[in-house]
């Protein structure tokens, strides 16, 4: 979680592809440490992708999303310079966010 989010926004034709990698352990609460103690659950529950400040994809996640979640989305009618941002919230109230701009491929 201390590592920064990686977000890349590329224009392909009239569509924009956004790829996001959010460093997070996505601890499911089902794993045990070597001494047998259950590792407490802590995972991202909400993700919001916004285009120029307006939410366009809103996600609810469970424990079945892999650690360091990687998502790709496609936005329509975007142009170079449009801003895209991502924000997440986890089950312990921690959050993260990042922003980038669309650039031509």
């Amino acid at each position, binding site marked *: 979680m201390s590592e920064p989010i990686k977000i890349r926004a590329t224009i392909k034709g009239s569509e924009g592809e956004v790829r996001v990698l959010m460093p997070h352990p996505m601890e*499911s609460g089902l794993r045990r440490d070597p001494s047998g103690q259950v590792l407490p659950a802590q995972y991202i529950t909400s993700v919001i992708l916004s285009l120029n400040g307006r939410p366009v994809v809103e996600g609810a996640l469970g424990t079945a999303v892999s650690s360091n979640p990687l998502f790709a989305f496609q936005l329509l009618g975007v142009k170079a310079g449009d801003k895209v941002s991502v924000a997440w919230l986890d089950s312990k109230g921690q959050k993260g966010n990042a922003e980038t701009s669309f650039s031509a491929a």
Partner: protein
Amino acid sequence: MQRRDFLQAFGSATVLAPLVVTGLLSPGPALAVSFNRAAFDARTAADALRLIGAAGAEASRDILLKAPEVAENGAAVPIEVVSSIPGTTRLSVLIDKNPLPLALQFNFAPEAAARFQAKLRMAESSRLRVVATAGGKHYTVFREVKVTVGGCGD
């Protein structure tokens, strides 16, 4: 018990509130439909489907679910979902044999194509199910995925 506490603390209506309050995000009318967080706590796919209101989803050929036939590593199974059903506003993914089958749900505004790629954990070989919601109706497609090494308890 921890999970129960978490669910009470993050009910569907409040789950996004902290992000909104901090000014990181402004709520948009396009995405006003909230999620039923209780569905993520369901232990069977049937219960999860019922809780997301999709128990009677009809089979559709207009949803593409791309997933490996055999996944060597259950900790990160890549999937791609594309709905060609006009007006798709939500895609949900379930993994029948996971301890908690509902994996994720995405809501899409008109500016977003109803498609995404993700990596999921699979505890064992299982049916993978996608539900697309469009115009208040639910459509579904599924695939069987064989998992060589489970990815939930390791």
